[in-house]
């Protein structure tokens, strides 16, 4: 990888790593008695290792001029592998905490292994580790193809990817040591947040520089979605994480906001993280990989634009539906509910557009598990956005909120939509990126598909049941007008569903492991040795016009 950098880039890399090592040292010294110091040491070690790497490759010949005749894909390859590793880590921890809710003593008598510290490792691991790496990797791939421009340099994509993964590692190790802001999905502390801002700005600048090199005036719609993901996540991240650290040398900080304002800011962030991290970015993925794999253009390009603005606009108002019947003023709750319900329109337009794209390619969906991953993703996208709008209605929310129904809803989206479209996109790109004819085994892709689908269905059904039962038990009165069930009664009723959920999660995890093996074997086998199957034959350029146009 150092060999791919120009001399000039190698020098800049060394300077960056030197600065990082110095900052790491200062952190380690300042935070001797604090997890902050541990992270400082980690940063320092990573930077020094990186310096060794750069120095050892420093005198390698510069990359040839003809590199400019091809896209720069090495970072995408790295990102995809990183995404798969994080998938296994994040899902493993997720399934572990799922078992802990059924058998709370399946743990070590150690602080790091308790539910509250492991849970954010799971959520950050899958959202930021798995999802984030997949988004960055595919966005690099897609932005170059759709603009027909190579990235402007070789260093900044690596800075973005490696820097982002450093953020993920700091986040996950921090949780295990008890470093957290407690803001859901924004747990990392102030120094990790600052680092992410630096990485993110570089990402944005890289994207814009590539767009500026394009030849076509029109920017393909996938890029709109990726750009919205980058921009809005930056905005959300900065505002929600405004905080005052207690001192240099301490990991701890206090949020600038308190009480109601803090709650509204947090769920404005939280809900829009769902919108712009888990929806917008992955729609960008969908709008490139699905047409490509199905060999058909998007059913209606116009609709993809209309739903883009709809999603960008509506989501912003919807966050307050997380706070129905709380101390948040009622008008804010009503506003949130209204916009959440309207959100269904652009969401279903997107899902419908995706499914209509497959019209005329259903035989491929039947034969090709990769395309089927994408198709099922679109179906779950439609289902979970409907469910989301439904749950945002105040009376429904009075039952569903605080229960496992929410957890089920989130996983219908996370497993059914986000993970499925990601696996589809990854299986499509691996042969393209590594120049293989097909995945090592189409059968294993098939196996992964069924494991993932079965896992999702079991998970979601278990949580629907437990959530609704829970919600009903908490509000049931007996004839004498008093509450019928104690909290413990509801706890006992949950047990079988918690076991079922953990089994569903296990299936999903197994699928991801199978996927890792398949990808590994694809990369290992020499290009010519790859067996060709109908399902994975590379796309031929046949242009078809969609009836929707």
């Amino acid at each position, binding site marked *: 990888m150092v060999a791919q950098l120009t001399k000039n880039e190698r020098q800049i890399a060394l300077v960056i790593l030197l600065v990082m090592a110095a900052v790491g040292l200062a952190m380690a010294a300042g935070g001797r008695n604090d997890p902050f110091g541990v992270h400082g040491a980690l940063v320092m070690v990573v930077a020094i290792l990186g310096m060794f790497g750069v120095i050892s490759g420093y005198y390698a010949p510069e990359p040839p001029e003809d590199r400019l005749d091809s896209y720069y894909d090495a970072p995408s390859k790295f990102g995809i592998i990183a995404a798969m590793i994080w998938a296994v880590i994040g899902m493993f921890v997720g399934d572990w905490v799922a078992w802990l809710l059924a058998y*709370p003593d399946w743990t070590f008598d150690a602080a790091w292994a308790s539910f*509250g510290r492991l*849970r954010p490792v799971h959520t950050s691991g899958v959202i930021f580790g798995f999802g984030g790496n997949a988004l960055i990797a595919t966005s690099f791939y897609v932005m170059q193809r759709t603009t027909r421009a190579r990235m402007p340099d070789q260093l900044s994509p690596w800075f973005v990817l490696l820097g982002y993964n450093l953020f993920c590692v700091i986040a996950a190790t921090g949780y295990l040591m008890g470093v957290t802001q*407690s803001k859901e999905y924004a747990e990392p502390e102030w120094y990790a947040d600052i680092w992410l801002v630096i990485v993110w700005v570089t990402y944005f600048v890289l994207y814009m520089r590539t767009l500026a090199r394009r030849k076509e005036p029109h920017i393909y719609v996938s890029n709109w979605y990726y750009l919205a993901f980058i921009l809005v996540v930056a905005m959300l991240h900065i505002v929600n994480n405004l905080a005052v650290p207690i001192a240099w040398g301490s990991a701890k900080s206090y949020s600038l906001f308190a009480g109601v304002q803090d709650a509204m800011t947090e769920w404005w962030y939280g809900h829009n993280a769902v919108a712009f991290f888990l929806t917008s970015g992955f729609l960008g993925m969908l709008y490139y990989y699905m047409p490509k794999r199905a060999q058909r253009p998007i059913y209606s390009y116009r609709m993809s634009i209309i739903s883009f603005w709809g999603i960008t606009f509506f989501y912003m108002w919807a966050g307050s539906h997380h706070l129905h019947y709380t101390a948040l*003023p009622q008008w804010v709750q009503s506003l949130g509910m209204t916009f959440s319900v309207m959100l269904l329109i652009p969401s279903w337009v997107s899902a419908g557009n995706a499914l209509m794209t497959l019209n005329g390619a259903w035989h491929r969906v039947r034969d090709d598990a990769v395309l089927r991953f994408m198709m099922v993703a679109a179906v779950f996208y439609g289902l979970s956005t409907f469910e989301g709008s439904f749950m945002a209605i105040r009376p429904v929310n009075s039952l569903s909120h605080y229960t496992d129904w929410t957890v089920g809803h989130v996983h219908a989206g996370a497993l059914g939509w986000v993970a499925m479209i990601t696996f589809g996109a990854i299986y499509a790109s691996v042969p393209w990126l590594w120049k293989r004819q097909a995945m090592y085994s189409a059968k294993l892709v098939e196996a992964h598909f069924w494991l993932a689908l079965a896992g999702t269905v079991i998970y979601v059904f278990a949580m629907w049941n437990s959530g609704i039962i829970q919600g009903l038990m*908490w509000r049931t009165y007996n004839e004498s007008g008093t509450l019928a069930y104690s909290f413990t009664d509801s706890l006992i009723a949950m047990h079988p569903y918690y076991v079922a959920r953990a089994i569903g999660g296990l299936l999903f995890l197994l699928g991801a492991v199978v996927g890792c093996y398949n990808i590994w074997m694809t990369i290992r086998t020499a290009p010519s040795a790859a067996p060709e199957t109908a399902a994975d034959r590379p796309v031929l350029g046949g242009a078809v016009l969609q009836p929707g146009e």
Partner: protein
Amino acid sequence: MFGFHYRLERKAIGLVLAIIGVASIGGIVEIAPLFTIHQTVEDAPDMRVYTPLELAGRNIYIREGCYACHSQMIRTLRDEVERYGPYSLAVESKYDHPMLWGSKRTGPDIARLGGKYSDDWHVAHLNNPRDVVPESVMPAYRFLSRAELRTDDLSNHLKAQRRVGVPYSDDMIANAAADAYGQAAPDSPQAEGVAKRYGKATNIRAFDGKPKDLTEMDALVAYLQILGRLTDAAYKPMASAEK
């Protein structure tokens, strides 16, 4: 050639600005009025700040991720009020940086936990919830009793809290470590200062049963025992409704 590229870039930047505009206006319009909310919400003159020990306990609550299973926000629904107590008011969390309203009740809401159980109950429960509630799925937190509480940086904590708007006095900041010790050691000379600075109603007890050492268990139990007790505001509308 230059003109063509200039146009292209303008287009990309236009798209960026449009996204930022469309995406930010909703949030701003919706959140901005909340910062003037104090004009409408009833004030709670009796509201007190967390003592250093309670604040340390709150930070342990955050560190251990208790908020992932417990909410601290009783909604305005009949069954919630009957199960957990008077519904939560905005003013009750006005010093909570960050708020801990929570989003999931794997365990019960604990917004009104203060005074519900004895200190001993909490210590036993945290050491192993299944000793007290056999069906519980809450993790055991045995290590809290073994861990000595860190107090050397408590002044910094209070200072940072003051910077974000919590009214800690210089006196409170200067004596933070001593107050933390004193609150869990009722017979020590430091105990007196706690009552002086934070009010007579402050709980000053050996929370974990061992007045000599100051553990994380002391801090966490001190925090749990003050939940919902920083002000009486929430209990008043109830009382007046009964009349």
